[in-house]
């Protein structure tokens, strides 16, 4: 799965752009986070790897700005499981296991659109990294 950050303008908000694309291309688009009001907004969406290119193009054709947010990666060599990051995470992507190991769940993480944990790590084990899959195709066709 690839995560896409979609930015809608004031004019685009009333249009059913996302549902049109889902129907037209028959792709499942999961909406992970949405901050939208009448003045515009942002949606963090997730699409299957193979559909990424056509979905990005479809949104851009309709004037929606698409960027691929970076992912958060944890260097398990550096992490000493203090847990400083745990209570900051808004989606509970970081949890303390029974044996007090701090576990990071990449699937739940919102990526660089959030990044709240990055500067709270005393071991400096948390970094924003580029999504490897399909990164070029989405950025290359702006």
């Amino acid at each position: 799965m690839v995560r896409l950050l979609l930015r809608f303008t004031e004019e685009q908000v009333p249009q059913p752009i996302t549902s049109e694309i889902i129907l037209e291309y028959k792709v499942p688009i999961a909406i992970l986070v949405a901050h939208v009001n009448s003045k515009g907004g942002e949606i963090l969406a997730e699409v299957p790897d193979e559909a990424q290119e056509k979905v990005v193009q479809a949104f851009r054709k309709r004037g929606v700005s698409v960027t691929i947010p970076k992912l958060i990666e944890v260097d398990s060599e550096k992490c000493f499981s203090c847990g400083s990051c745990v209570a900051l995470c808004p989606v509970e992507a970081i949890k303390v296991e029974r044996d007090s190991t701090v576990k990071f769940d990449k699937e739940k993480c919102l990526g660089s659109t959030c990044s709240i944990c990055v500067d709270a790590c005393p071991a400096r084990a948390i970094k924003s990294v580029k999504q490897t899959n399909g990164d070029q195709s989405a950025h290359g066709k702006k």
Partner: protein
Amino acid sequence: MSKQVKTRTVEEINEKIRKGDAQVLTAEEMKKLVESSGVEVAFKEVDVVTTGTFGAMCSSGAVINLGHSDPPIKIDHAWMNDVEVCHPGAAVDLYIGATNMSVKHPFEYGGGHVIQDLVAGKEVELRANAYGTDCYPRTQLKTNITKDDLNQFQLLNFRNCYQRYNCAVNTSEETIYTYMSKLLPRMRNATFSGAGELNPLMNDPDYETIGMGTRIFLGGGQGYVIGEGTQHSPKNLNGTLMVKGDAKKMTPEFLQGAAFTKYGTSMYVGLGIPIPILNEGLAEKTAIRDSEIFTDVVDYSVPRRDRPKLSKVSYKELKSGSIVVNDKKIRVSSLSSIKMARKVSQTLKSWIEDGSFLLTQPVERLPTEGVFKPMRQTEEIPFVVSVMHSAITCTEDEKINAIAERMITKSVNHIVVIDTAGKLRGIVTSWDVTRAMAEGKKALADIETHNVVTAKPDEPLEVASKRMAQHNISALPVIDVEKKVLGILTSEDVSKLLGREKPW
């Protein structure tokens, strides 16, 4: 009940360790045993309980001796990997303080990282200068060193192993960055430190067995307690330790450099103490649980020494991941590593079991009396309340003309907008009025700023003045907790005071 011998000695325990017969439990295992079988059985069966903690301990560092260069140098200033290290003694003795920061990468790399790199066997760059004397003629030095090149490399921490520590929250409107890490506004998170029921001092709270000469686990090697730590405050369960140990034999896993955003660098230290179970009383004390250890929830947004205590919570609640303060559920994170603390206690247990670690009897116990005193200050520092003056105000139904006139007659640049109860609604500046004139605006609502940056009366002036600079503004309305306007602090008030007195 038969009256058996109710005590044992450290020497008897050591004899068992040498024979491989000593019964050693970690503090966590001991608690379970006492719970299931009682104190009497636990005392009979257990000789030693091992404890552990792994947390950021800023008052840590290492003394090193470099040996003499040729020609010799009496070091004046020195840097290791661009971190300034001080020279507390003669020519080539240096102290690497954990919180000193790299001049090239401040807030990211510091003394704690230099110590960790040296312990890991890495090469570290040393630069030094000197004024030159007849006996020490050299004035410049640059070399690369590893721990093997050093004569001594002694970890020497003047305050470690706090018995317990505060839980930190932030009630302000902005995120703050502290040594208790990142604290989100309006108490959206909390942080705490300390291992609770695993903490060494908590398992021997009367310091029956801990004192000068106690051999301990320190940074993955063996070290010693050399006395009470600075700020040792036993009366309110805030004891601390001063410790030393040969850093050449330590491991980077248990001594890790750390960086706290906008606070600075530090070092995580692994420290564990074996508690000899000399009597039933100690068996009972080592059974202490997280639910019996309490600490204060402290508001770190108040920039004063005595910060408001909002609540009391147990380490059991803290370790559960959430606490309740003023009926609000707050998610809470640990800053110290419980996982590593457990590893310290387990490693120490294995050392004693395999006979490589013998216990010692302290030559002098830690003081059990005394509290940590605040600083004697012979010079007063100014607070907002002593510098602010009364604010010129208006209400939202007034016309811009009337406001402009008031600015002239009262000769002020800021008018604070209040409601009928005297509570803050907004602020209007002379610049806003000028702009209204230029753009032909008539209504106050068009030019009034609602998102007002404010000050509290009991804040130090320095903090308020820094806030003005950060937001690039020239005045702060001073309000109380109910948002009632008490006065106004302007940049002129601040500069007048600065002109009169020495800067603090």
